[in-house]
């Protein structure tokens, strides 16, 4: 039975349980809901929860475990002789799975009878031919053992599926009966429902936390793996970035410093653009603009924050790059070779960060109490004196926090630098030269056809880890500063 139907049936059992539980609880109180411990709907929910939750949990666990179990059993069935020298058990198992899949599809299309697919003495050539006729992809490597394994694989999966359906339905019915038995007036249904809601929320929170943990762990493991293949000192202190994809290992230089320099340089240009403009825009919006101007300028600025970064990347590549080249290129000052450069990426990245800086700063400036401004005006200070000497110093920690958050976004930004900054890893001071960043190199290391076990590919994880540590540090520092600032007025 398809999973979809199974889910629907379990939900239907739950719904029926809700109605029955509610009615039974009411009946036990003689139809007067005031004699119940909880509201009638809580009794219904209690039954529904007991019918649905354990059944779904069982289903999820079963769906996770069954493929592993089946694969393991079938894989154990394959004789050593069935695995070619230049292959591995994993590759052969993939073949088995593909064959089983092909047979499933062929049976579903009616091109192959169920008996034929399950026939233990079927001839390999015959089966292969029929699969090909059915339009299934079959490689020539389907051998007798693989065919047997595929047949076994199919059988185990289908019996497993049937067993799961039965187990889930039985559990659901048992759960609802249990819940119904409890639906008596004095039963504390509300407490059960409250606890279930709590469990649901805790579950959601832990999924978020566990995912983060999983991402970090996968980064860590792959980074450790990389450092086993490539010396850490060369990685952290190497001045040269020159991965080679032809000769495996050894000949590559994978020093992170040129990439970090590129990241740092581009982020610096971006911040030099974004911080003054964003900050001044925020001051104008919060202190000078009339409510009318503010009410349309602020959303407009926030639209800028909603533009996908790939669009900014295109803007860098197709507009800003050629524009800069026209001024600083060979026709102009002659210090720029190509459209892709630190300046191009930095400028566009800065534009991207303007709304980010201005909207955060605007909130922070608005949080400075009006009484502070009144105090200054009352002493005969002008508007700009008040802003410069009272409002900004009061908001400074928050603004610094906003700038740090912007910096960590600049460091992590990918699309704009991939398109705008060029691909050459270089330690240079000329902002009109092409350079590249950590993020851009992660993309290029993983999008090639490199073997994922080679240091040239694994280096991406080490780069990602480094970036992660840097931005995490910046974020924590920024949040610390922002929080400290908040305490001042609360």
């Amino acid at each position: 039975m398809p999973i979809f139907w199974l889910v629907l049936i379990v939900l239907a059992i739950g719904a029926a349980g809700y109605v029955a539980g509610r009615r039974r609880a009411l009946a036990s109180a003689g139809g007067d809901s005031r004699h119940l411990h909880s509201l009638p709907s809580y009794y219904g929910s209690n039954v529904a929860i007991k019918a649905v939750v354990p059944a779904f949990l069982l289903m999820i666990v079963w769906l996770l475990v069954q493929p592993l179990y089946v694969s393991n059993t079938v894989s154990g069935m394959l004789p050593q002789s069935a695995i070619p020298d230049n292959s591995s058990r994993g590759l052969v198992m993939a073949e088995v799975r593909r064959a089983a899949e092909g047979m499933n599809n062929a049976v579903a299309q009616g091109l192959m009878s169920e008996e034929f697919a399950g026939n233990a003495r079927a001839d390999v050539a015959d089966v292969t031919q029929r699969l090909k006729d059915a339009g299934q992809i079959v490689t020539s490597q389907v051998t007798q053992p693989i065919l047997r394994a595929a047949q076994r694989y199919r059988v185990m999966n289908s019996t497993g599926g049937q067993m799961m359906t039965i187990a889930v339905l039985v559990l659901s019915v048992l759960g609802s009966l249990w819940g119904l038995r409890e639906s008596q007036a004095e039963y504390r249904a509300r407490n059960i429902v409250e606890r279930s809601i709590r469990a649901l929320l805790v579950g959601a929170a832990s999924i978020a936390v566990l995912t983060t943990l999983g991402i970090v762990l996968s980064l860590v493991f792959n980074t450790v793996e990389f450092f086993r293949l490539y010396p850490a000192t060369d990685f952290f202190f190497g001045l040269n970035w020159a991965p080679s994809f032809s000769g495996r290992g050894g000949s590559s230089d994978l020093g992170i410093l040129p990439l970090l320099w590129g990241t740092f340089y581009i982020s610096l240009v971006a911040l030099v653009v974004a911080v003054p403009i964003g900050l001044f825009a925020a001051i104008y919006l919060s202190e000078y603009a009339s409510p009318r101007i503010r009410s349309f300028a602020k959303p407009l600025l926030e639209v800028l924050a909603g533009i996908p970064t790939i669009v900014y990347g295109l803007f860098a590549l197709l507009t800003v790059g050629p524009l800069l080249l026209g001024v600083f290129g060979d026709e102009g000052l002659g210090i720029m070779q190509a459209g892709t450069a630190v300046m191009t990426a930095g400028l566009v990245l800065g534009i991207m960060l303007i709304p980010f800086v201005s909207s955060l700063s605007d909130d922070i400036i608005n949080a400075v109490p009006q009484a502070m401004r009144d105090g200054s005006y009352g002493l005969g200070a002008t508007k700009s004196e008040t802003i410069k000497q009272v409002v900004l110093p009061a908001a400074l920690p928050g603004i610094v926090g906003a700038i740090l958050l912007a910096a960590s976004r600049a460091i992590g930004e990918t699309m704009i630098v991939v398109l705008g900054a060029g691909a050459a890893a270089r330690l240079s001071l000329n902002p009109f030269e092409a350079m590249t960043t950590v993020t851009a190199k992660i993309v290029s290391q993983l999008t090639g056809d490199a073997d994922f076990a080679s240091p040239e590919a694994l280096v991406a994880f080490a780069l990602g880890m480094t970036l992660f540590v840097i931005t995490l540090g910046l974020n924590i520092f920024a949040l610390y500063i922002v929080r400290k600032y908040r305490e001042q007025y609360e």
Partner: protein
Amino acid sequence: MYDAPASEQKVNQQTTKISARKVQVYYGDTHAIKDVDVDIEDRTVTAFIGPSGCGKSTFLRCLNRMNDTIDVARIEGDILLDGEDIYDKKVDPVQLRAKVGMVFQKPNPFPKSIYDNIAYGPRIHGLAKNKADLDEIVEKSLRRGAIWNEVKDRLHAPGTGLSGGQQQRLCIARAIATEPEVLLMDEPCSALDPIATGQVEELIDELRESYSVVIVTHSMQQAARVSQKTAFFHLGNLVEYGETGQIFTNPVDPRTESYITGRIG
């Protein structure tokens, strides 16, 4: 109702510091101050009394144009300072506020050091020629604000770290550091203990020698102690204005009488 005859007004000409005529204040549609006429004399302490929400703070804020910072506020009528209309287009509110200082109802020290809080006004108006000069202004103001002894050892600690009453005295010291001609004080003693209140009242008395002081207060005793003139506001109207002694002993308007007796008991 206070209605000075024309002849008396002429005599008061030299001593009248601020004169308000037919002042109306609106907050959006709310009519907060209705038709107020008042002459505030030089070298005099004038007390504004009245129930909460009657418009004392609002009227006080008109006198140094602090209502300009409230978008919805609208002011009509004339307010003359030394015979010049302060709402005239030629008048710079910034200069006006340097002349008419203000202490707010809630203490609002800047998030700066105690020293910088006091030095703020003198610095923006260029009152000190050098550092020693500024140090002297700061010390003198803190002494007059009756807070010098408590803060002299921590002039460079943040002003926001002081207690509420200390902050209020800091704000008073900050206001007198700029040497205003008129000092507007909105309930300056509401957060102070009796000792500090006594010190502030002494300061007010001392300021009277050279300035004109307007003080809003909810304490009848305080109004009676420190002021020479008292104005009673009720629902945005100026009900009665006159010599403090006369208002407290022999009020003309029944509303004044019931307010004063209701409070004093």
